[in-house]
Every structure is written in C-alpha cells, then in structure tokens.
C-alpha cells in the first residue's frame, strides 16, 4: 500500500481511461474547434461527444443545455451573475450559510458592492436547511435561489427538487452548486425544476481546470465571458478541448460506477464510521446520517485540533481533510461546522474522510487501525482532555 487517499471531496485521481481519452487531443487532434478545416472539425466532434456524455450523466433533455467552463467556481459565478443581469429589476438572492466560498464570496461582494439583498438561510444541527426561513425569504424580488446539492464537508444533501419548485412558484431562477453531488447520486434534470447546475471535472475523476454549467432550455441567460462564439456564445474563449473530452469520459464512467458508489463505497464509509465511533470516545459524525453523500464521513473529535490529526494521519500514509482553522490559514474553524452549531470543543477537530471508487477495504482497515492511536496520542497532549478525561461520564455530544 503506497498511501490511502481519502480526500476525494477535495480532488480525485484522474481515471486512466480519462487520461487515455485526452491524450490524442494534445498531439493528434490539436486543432482549434472553431477553425474551418478538418483539424478543427475533428476536435469539434469530440467536444460534442463530451457534451452528450455529460448530458447523459445529468439526465438533461438536450445536449445543448451543457455549457463547458473552466471550473465549478466559474459555473457558480456565471449562473448568479447571469440571473441578476437577465432580471435587472430583481435585486434579491437566496442562498444558504453553508455554501462553498464560490457562492458565498460572490454573494458577499454583490451585497457590499452592488447593494443586492442576500438572504442566507440557516441550517440545523444536522446541516438541514431551515425550510421555514427559506419560505419567508421567497418573494417576487428574488432573481435567483442558489443552494448546494450536497455539502462538501458533511455530505448532507439538500432536498433540491422541493427547493427548486418553491423558487419557481415565485418566479425565481433556481441554481444548484452540484459539484459534490454529480456522479455520486442519480440525476434526472429533464424532469426537474432546476434551471442551472454547476459541476466540476476534478471531483469526478476528470482533470482540474474544466467544469460545466447546465442551463435548462428556455432559461434567460447572459454570458459572463464575452468574446468569440464558442459554446453558442454563452461562454467565450477557446475550449479546453482535452479537459472537456476528459470530463466527457469521466461522466460516462461515473454513470457506470454510480451503483458501486452507492453500495460498495457507501458500505466502506459506514464501516469506517462505525469502527471509529466504537473505538474512540468523545467523537461523532456530523451532518445528516440519513441523507448524505455515500462517500463522505466527517467525524468531529473532541478536545484536539484537526491539523495535528492530519499531520499524524499523513505520517501513517493517510490523506484526509479538516475543517480546522489551522489547515486553511483562515483562523476560524469551518463555517459549516459553526453554522451547524458544532461546539468549539469539536469543531476544531472535525476530520473529513472522503472515499472514491478507488478506495479498497484494505485501505479502510488500515485507517481503522491507525485512527484510535492518533486520537489517543493527541489527547494525551491536550489540556482539555486531561480535564475532561476519557471516562467523562455524562458527556453528551450535540450529535449522537
């Protein structure tokens, strides 16, 4: 075993078949898709094939509803800015407090610099959206509602279709940042009320630097990048043809592996959680245990700090992630943990294990064997652990 990679919500290994599909685009099919010759035509055909592959993964009605972009962030920004421009009289956005910075930072900017009203809907202790607060915020002034489909830290899923229908009822566009959800759970956008959806290639075994925005046919749209006529004038700029072809292949593979993701990978994730909870006192799984991505386990360890956990995991060949302040250089713990009301005693020690179809049982067994010792070792150093003690009877985590 060379290393156990359990940070797939950050990025995934590019699938060998994806690399194989991309390679000819660098040497053999190198033409510009916009050029009027055979070199360009061949690349154009490959891009259209990729569009159909992504369409199939999303269950979209038309391949022309797929707009290739450079990232999930670009897709998110495009969707929100497009809605504001397309409906200039509407000056309100609704989003949630647990969104990715790609949405939250843009909303902050729009609020501060353009005077847009932003409603940030809170979540409960499991990360579930406060539906009543959402209902109260809906009005004819809402240009766009933007909710993530799956949370990147906890994996908690929002009831997207229900939320989208409520947005449509007041005439608002509905966008979902589905970067973490695409490829992991089945989607059928053709039958949904979702107007726009963002996805990112590197979260589903395609390379970094390519993403897509689904725009339902009939949705009023304004491009963010203007210039050439690429992507039917909805996203100017020469296409990242190798990346797009890689994304197409990755989408095809994701569709094939979705059953594995929801059975074998889910079972491994559950095994990991059960074993750690059984072996380690004073820890708990964050997020909604019943409505979660199948690959994500976010476990909050009390009285120790996440970066120290990651360093010791890394020393044991295990890659994971943490919502602790120290890992990011931001000095506050994860905004998701704070929004869920996870106490500071645990928020700093929240550790995310995100699996993929590459993950094996042997790897999970290794993690299960190593984690309790790491936690014990760090708690032996912690002044708070010595005060509370491993035998802290009456310890009642917020989440049980």
């Amino acid at each position, binding site marked *: 075993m060379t290393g156990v990679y359990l940070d797939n919500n950050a990025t995934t290994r590019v699938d060998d078949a994806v690399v194989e599909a991309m390679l000819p685009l660098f040497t053999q099919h190198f033409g510009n898709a916009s050029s009027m010759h055979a070199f360009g035509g061949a690349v154009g055909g490959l891009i259209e094939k990729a569009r159909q592959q992504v369409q199939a993964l999303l269950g979209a009605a038309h391949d022309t509803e797929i707009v290739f972009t450079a990232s999930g962030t670009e897709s998110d920004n495009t969707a929100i800015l497009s809605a504001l421009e397309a409906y200039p009289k509407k000056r309100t956005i609704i989003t949630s407090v647990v969104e990715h910075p790609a949405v939250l930072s843009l909303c902050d900017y729009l609020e501060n610099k353009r005077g847009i009203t932003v409603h940030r809907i809170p979540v409960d202790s499991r990360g579930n959206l406060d539906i009543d607060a959402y209902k109260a915020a809906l009005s004819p002034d809402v240009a766009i509602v933007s909710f993530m489909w799956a949370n990147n830290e906890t994996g908690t899923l929002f009831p997207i279709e229900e939320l989208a229908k409520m947005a449509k009822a007041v005439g608002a566009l509905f966008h979902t940042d589905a970067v973490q959800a695409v490829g992991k759970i089945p989607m059928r956008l053709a039958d949904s009320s979702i107007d726009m959806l963002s996805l990112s290639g590197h979260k589903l075994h395609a390379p970094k630097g390519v993403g897509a925005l689904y725009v339902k046919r009939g949705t009023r749209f304004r491009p963010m990048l203007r210039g050439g006529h690429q992507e039917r004038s909805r996203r100017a700029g020469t296409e990242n043809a190798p990346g797009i072809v890689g994304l197409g292949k990755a989408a095809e593979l994701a569709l094939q592996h979705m059953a594995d993701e929801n059975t074998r990978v889910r079972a491994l994730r559950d095994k990991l959680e059960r074993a750690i909870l059984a072996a380690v006192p004073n820890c708990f799984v964050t997020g909604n245990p019943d409505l979660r991505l199948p690959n994500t386990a976010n476990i909050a360890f009390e*009285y*120790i*700090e*996440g*970066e*120290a956990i990651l*360093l*010791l995991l*890394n*020393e044991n060949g295990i890659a994971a992630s943490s919502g*602790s*302040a*120290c*890992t990011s*250089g*931001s*000095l*506050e*713990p994860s905004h998701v943990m704070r929004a869920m009301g996870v106490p*500071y*005693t645990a928020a*700093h020690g929240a550790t995310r294990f995100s699996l993929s179809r590459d993950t094996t049982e042997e790897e999970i067994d290794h993690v299960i064997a190593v984690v309790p010792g790491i936690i014990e070792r760090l708690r*032996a*150093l*912690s*002044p*708070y652990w*010595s005060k509370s003690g491993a035998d802290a009877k009456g310890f009642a985590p917020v989440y049980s």
Partner: protein
Amino acid sequence: MWNYTDKVKEHFFNPKNAGALETANAVGEVGSITCGDALKLMMKVNPDTNVIEDARFQTFGCGSAIASSSALTEMIIGKTVDEALVITNRDIAEYLGGLPPEKMHCSVMGAEALRAAIANFKGEEWVDDHEEGELVCKCFGIDAAMIERAVTVNNLTTLEEVTNYTKAGGSCQTCHEKIEEVLEAVLAKQAAKPPEKSPLLPVADIKPAPTPAPKADAPVAAAPKMTNVQRMQAIMMAIEEIRPQLQRDGGDVELVDIDGKDIYVRLSGACTGCSQSASTMMGVQMKLVEKLGEFVRVKPASLLAKV
C-alpha cells in the same frame, strides 16, 4: 500543506516534556478552545536558586503549536526564571528553524504562557493581556497591548503580519481598522526621532562622526544613523529615565553591557525579588526600543557570563 522545518516536525512527532507535571510550582495557561489553540505550561522551579528544574506542557492546537510548546520547555529547563523571562516568541521560532508566517502566533502563545507561569511562581496574580489595554479583536480576545508588544518585538509592519502573529483580525475582520491604528501608532513611535535639543541626547557633548554627503535624491526625512557613542548615550539616558520610577519603589536598574542588539541590565534592591520583574524587564526593553528606533533585547546581567 504547511512547509514545516525538520525541527518543527521533530518536536511535533516526538514532543519533549509533554504531559502533566505533578510537582509544578509554576503554571501558566493561555489561549482557549474557542481560539483553536491553548497551552498549559507547568514548571518546577527551585525556590532557593530560582532555577527551572523541570518543565512540561499540555497543548491543544496544531502541529506548530505543539512544536512551539515542546521547544519552549527545552529552552527553559536549567535556566533561572530571570533568564527565561527574556525569551521572546522570536527566540522560540528561531529555535525551531522558523515557522510559516501564518503560524507565528503559536510562538507568541508560548512566550505568553512562559510569562504567565513565571508570574504564577512569583505569587503574582497574572493579568493577561486582555486587561492591559483596550480589547481590539473580540473574536480572539486580543487587546491593544498584546498587538503593541508583538509589533515591537517582531518588527511587524503590516496588518497581515499582526494577524499572523496574534490572530487579531483573523475572523470577522471588523477590527482591521482598529488594528491598523494601533500598528500606525507603534510604528510612529519607533520612527520618531528625538528632538534636536532633547535632554536624552546631549549631542553637544558628543563629537558627531563624519557622515557622507546625502545624495541628491535621498529622502529628506531619513533618520540619521546613530554612531556607536550616540547609541550608547541614548541607551544610558533611557535607563536613567526609568531609574527614578524604580527607585520610588525601592528598586533600581543599572546598565551592565551592550552587545549589539542585546542590552544587559541588572535589577537591584526591591526589583530583584519583585514579582513584577518580568514586566520590569519588558518595560525596559520597550523603552529602549522606543528611544533607539530599533529592535533590541534586554537581558539580565546574569546571562552575560554565559555569553
């Protein structure tokens, strides 16, 4: 991933002197679980010799916080409390071969815990920085005094550096303007030149060293560099300014030697056994930094023999 030095990794993966010290007679606790890092420093100090015979720590925090704590214990064991109290966060960071800029606050936590523990040993009720001055950063409970000290000791010049060293302003950011005000005030103090006829600098009695003619494009306001004699005079005058305050309390301080950035002084009278001697040393250092417009370290004369 943070780019930690081998020394930081060594102290994180194999921390020295970790755990509770049952025989401790000096304990300093700083930080909080809310802030994301906390340190409990425990020392066993020989009451007859004031030598720190043992030191242990318990730390809640990241890799550099644990490494800084471990390093600190290694640095202070065998020293007297007076020798230890001049250790700054820079010394801890240097001992570790450096820390990433964003992690310098871990070394500051170590220095603060040391001050708290020494105060505890001396029977002083240690008032942490939050009560010394106006609270600036409410998120992390950082006050103006702590920012001033971090700026002075570490020669900080930007808001970002202040955040890296103290955490102040690292959360909601509403205090950024206030931090910049404190920063500007300290920098202004440091840059302030003594007035030409300042009683602190009897320049008339000092023969100025020849200075090269200024270039045509040289900034007009550039502060002239002191000669060695001028610098020594400035240090002596600053000490003289402090002495009356100490003498009123039955104590005193004398200048023993100057070695580059290190200024050796001897506390005497009531100051020698005073519970506030750590603060006194720090105060002398602050005064000298202010007067000289450069960073210097004030050390007890007892360290001189070991140089």
